């Protein structure tokens, strides 16, 4: 520092020196350009925040329609393929399916396959699927087309040995799981291990896809009543019919009590011109 100089240096002088700090000329050109850009951007209307957010979310949901369509197509394809494979298995195993106007779900004990077929002949149309030879070898007949109320009846018969022949029932089914049960039983009867495995796996797959129908698939024989139960039901039917007879007698006695004998009743009917199918009134 030049302290020998005669010019005093004050704080104001130092601050004046600071005032001499100036940007270069090129700075103002850049300043001008940036200011113009900011002015133009300020003239543009500001988009509200919710519109920016919705635009961002719109970017996320850019492919909903193609994805949804692909998913629907994939589901349809899988469903059709699964349905075809199940139907094919059933046809290969010669599963007999029939419709019946009897109880929609249950097993009629004591009726053989032949008997069940005779019974169904009166109410259902027999449609043979496949060659008769294959039906004979499988020992299973497929019956479809119900009458008025068409529950499907599965008739198992043919071979004297095996679970299916021992069951010897006409089983009335109306659900896919029950068809699967029938297929499994017939596979076991034919000692076709590969077929059994396939059927079991298909039944398992089917059950896994329809969990609400899995319970009947697990224990099919448990649904069949024992012979003692059949006897009990027969006895109960007899008791019920005897009860009905006694009730009719009681009604007749009541009519007699009221003085409405049969002769009087016939007269009244004749007066009104009533017959079995029509009623006439004369004034």
């Amino acid at each position, binding site marked *: 520092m030049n302290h020998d100089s005669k010019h*005093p240096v004050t704080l104001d002088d130092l*601050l004046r020196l600071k*005032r001499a700090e100036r940007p270069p000329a090129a700075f103002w050109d850049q300043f001008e350009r940036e200011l113009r850009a900011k002015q133009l951007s300020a003239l543009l209307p500001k988009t509200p925040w919710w519109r920016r957010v919705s635009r961002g979310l719109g970017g996320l949901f850019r492919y909903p329609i193609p994805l949804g369509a692909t998913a629907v197509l994939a589901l349809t394809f899988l469903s059709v393929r699964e349905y075809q494979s199940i139907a094919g298995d059933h046809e290969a195993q010669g599963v007999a399916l029939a419709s019946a106007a009897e109880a929609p779900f249950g097993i009629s004990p004591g009726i053989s396959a032949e008997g069940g077929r005779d019974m169904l002949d009166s109410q259902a149309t027999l449609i043979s699927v496949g060659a008769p030879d294959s039906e004979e070898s499988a020992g299973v007949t497929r019956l479809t087309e119900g009458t008025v109320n068409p529950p499907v009846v599965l008739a198992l018969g043919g071979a004297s040995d095996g679970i299916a022949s021992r069951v010897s029932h006409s089983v009335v089914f109306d659900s896919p799981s029950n068809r699967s049960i029938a297929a499994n039983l017939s596979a076991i009867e034919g000692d076709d291990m590969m077929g059994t495995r396939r059927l079991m796996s298909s039944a398992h797959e089917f059950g896994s896809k329809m969990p609400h129908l899995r319970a009947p698939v697990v224990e099919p024989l448990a649904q069949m009543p024992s012979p003692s139960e059949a006897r009990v039901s027969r006895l109960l039917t007899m008791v019920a019919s005897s009860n009905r007879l006694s009730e009719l007698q009681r009604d007749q006695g009541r009519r007699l009590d009221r003085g409405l004998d049969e002769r009087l009743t016939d007269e009244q009917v004749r007066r009104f011109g009533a017959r079995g199918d029509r009623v006439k009134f004369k004034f």
Partner: protein
Amino acid sequence: MDATTKILGKTLVASPERRQEADADLDIVRNVQAGDVAAFDRLILKYRERVYSIVYHMTSNREDAADLTQDAFIRAFQSIHRYSGQSSFFTWLYRIAVNATLSHLRKNKLRSFFSLDRIDTDEPVSREIVAALTDKSGADRDTFVHELQEKLNDAMHKLSIKHRTVVSLFEIDGLSHEEIAEVMNCSVGTVRSRLHYAKQLLQAELQPYMRR
């Protein structure tokens, strides 16, 4: 009493130059308010160096000062329809710039990055001061000036934001106490008090560079 007299009566600055300046500014502002957007460019050209100077001396950062000056002009342009002429356009624009700078400094209190402009030693006043401080020449002189500039900057940044603003507006930009009071929205007494305190601190800091 015309509009200009009213304005200057409020700002307590009634020198003939200021009056003419305020009158001219008001005409331009009225044109901008009437839809002549290009007229605002004249105001930018007229005040950009002064606004930049005050912001630069408050921030000691050239890039920040440029950004804040641009923002101040943009804000002034956007709210020009709200300018009613209660104060001079110059004071109104300064207030916008100073408030934006104070807000910026409060937000970036911990960040202190300086980028200083070069002292123009070709100017007669600065050349005389530098010559009084050193007899060096050439590169040595430039080094001494740079060192002095950094020392001045350090001393300024040892002041609080408000004290620094008062010193910048009064000593560097040459505003009167009344104008500073209007810009900073405080009393003239407060301005004088802050100025006095700030000068004392600066004097203590810059003692080695001063001689009687």
